[in-house]
């Protein structure tokens, strides 16, 4: 009985978050527009790159897709934190907390809904890339693994933005920290260029940058094929981030909720 109740609670919280998401078409439009803009800008900016000797045989489009997927996800995780900070500060969370709803469901329902959001963005980016002529070496199974990586990374990374949000109760701080992290993470990773095109010192840095592992995995699925080592590394990195960020989030959430 209690399990059924818990699942129902998760469902209701999830349903509400989804209703809010789909209820604002403007936000979805901007996400579409943002993805299109980045794809066009990056491929135009770097279009001559693939003529250089040493560049992988695939065009830059396939390279860029991997990077843009995670740039979008990094931005999206800020919205996940913003939503909960807002609910905390407006007292909406208190409204929920005076009901017998399961405390875990409040977070779980949210996270599931965020996962759907990350998946939608992935569809948008991949869809536009497809229309622009990108090819997918691993076909449908590979695309499904790309979804898994993006959603997994998004959920893991949102633990970090949530930690910042719950600790400071300030959306400004979430935005500042999130944005400050996004750019260095993108530019010191292999997300936008193949590793051989980076200066030596940066090549070292990329090895410690989670975005590198994510975009390498996505790129390998698009360009070459299933590469067990690359995929395993990506999921290991996701797991590590997940454990670290969500233990602090849960700890902070418990102090807010009783």
């Amino acid at each position, binding site marked *: 009985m209690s399990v059924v109740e818990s699942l129902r609670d998760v469902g209701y919280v999830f349903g509400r978050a989804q*209703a809010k998401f789909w209820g604002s078409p403007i936000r979805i439009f901007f996400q579409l527009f943002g993805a299109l803009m980045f794809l066009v800008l990056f491929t135009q900016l770097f279009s001559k790159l693939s003529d250089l000797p040493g560049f992988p045989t695939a065009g830059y489009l396939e390279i860029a897709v991997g990077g843009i997927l995670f740039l979008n996800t990094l931005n999206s995780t800020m919205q996940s934190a913003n939503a909960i900070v807002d609910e905390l500060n*407006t*007292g909406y969370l208190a*409204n929920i907390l005076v009901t*017998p709803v399961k405390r875990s469901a409040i977070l779980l329902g949210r996270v599931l809904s965020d996962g759907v959001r990350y998946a939608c963005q992935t569809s948008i980016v991949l869809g536009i890339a497809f229309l622009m002529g990108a090819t997918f070496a691993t076909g449908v199974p590979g695309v499904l693994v790309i979804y898994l990586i993006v959603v997994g990374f998004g959920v893991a990374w949102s633990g970090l933005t949530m930690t910042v949000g719950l600790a400071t109760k300030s959306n400004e701080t979430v935005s500042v920290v999130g944005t400050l992290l996004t750019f260095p993470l993108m530019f010191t990773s292999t997300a936008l260029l193949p590793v051989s095109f980076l200066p030596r010192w940066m090549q070292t840095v990329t090895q410690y940058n989670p975005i590198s592992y994510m975009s390498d995995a996505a790129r390998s699925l698009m360009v070459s094929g299933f590469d067990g080592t690359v995929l395993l590394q990506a999921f290991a990195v996701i797991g590590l981030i997940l454990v670290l960020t969500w233990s602090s989030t849960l700890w902070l959430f418990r102090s807010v909720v009783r």
Partner: protein
Amino acid sequence: MSDIIVVEDLVEVYASGTRAIDGISFRVPEGEFFGFLGPNGAGKSTTIKVLSTLLRKTSGSVTIGGHDLEQDPDGIRRIIGVQSQETVVDGDLSGRKNLLFQGHLQRMQGPALQSRVEELLDLMELKEAADRKARQYSGGMKRRLALAAALVHRPRLVFLDEPTTGLDPQSRAKVWGYLSKLNKEEGTTVFLTTQYLEEADKLCRELSIIDRGKIVASGSPADLKEQIGGEAIILTPDPDAGAGAREALEGRLRALPGVGKVVEADSGLVVYARQASRLVPEIVTLFRGVGVRLDSISLAAPTLDDVFLQKTGSRIRGEDLTSGAAPAPVGGVRGGVY
């Protein structure tokens, strides 16, 4: 009837060190219409937050509907409804969806929930706006929606934190009517905080007056007025009269037969006395004797405001609204309310 709320020696100290509740004890019998009356910062909202399981109490004991606050908060959550002081509704969702979601969280579903939601939309006159996003509602509509949300699951006990603040007089009268009905016909116990004395007087059968975290008086409105001892004589002495003269005045007023209390208020001096009208000639003579001009004199039946004045030394409205003692509430809704 058994007591649905039993509070003993409750203390709440915020992390900042503020002692918002300073050892209060009270009981509310099931079916009661109970009011908590107090100025800004008295500790009304804090009390509701502790009783509704949101804030962890510092010490003392609380039992609600037989469920201990520490041992069984979920048991409490199942039987209470709460309307917080800050109006919170989900602006992205329609009014109807707001109520449905609230019902779901209270484990309601299906036709039972649906018909309850429609009933409440009707009652709160939100039917026409039910499918509009709550963001587009006026302040008063949001307030009524929040009240409806607190009632979806027909709670045995509702906590209403200043439910009529921000409503126009007609809406307020309607809410009063609805709350009385809820209490009388459905037997719901109501715990209401208010700054409107008229509201407390009209609705509440039992009242506690809280000031600076302590209960300073309790009883029915009639009892409390009775405690004042007679009627109020409101005197306006010459504002330029010296402090010495004023003190002499107060001393002599106190010595008059039948006089209970003499209180200094913004409006002048308030003398509480039995058979007040008979004292008027004596008071006039007394002023003449001390040599202070008497600008006006009037008589009034005691109100809860007088109870408040006597117990706390200040009027409930007026200075309290501008003293800035209360923290700015989150959400910003409060700011537009007065």
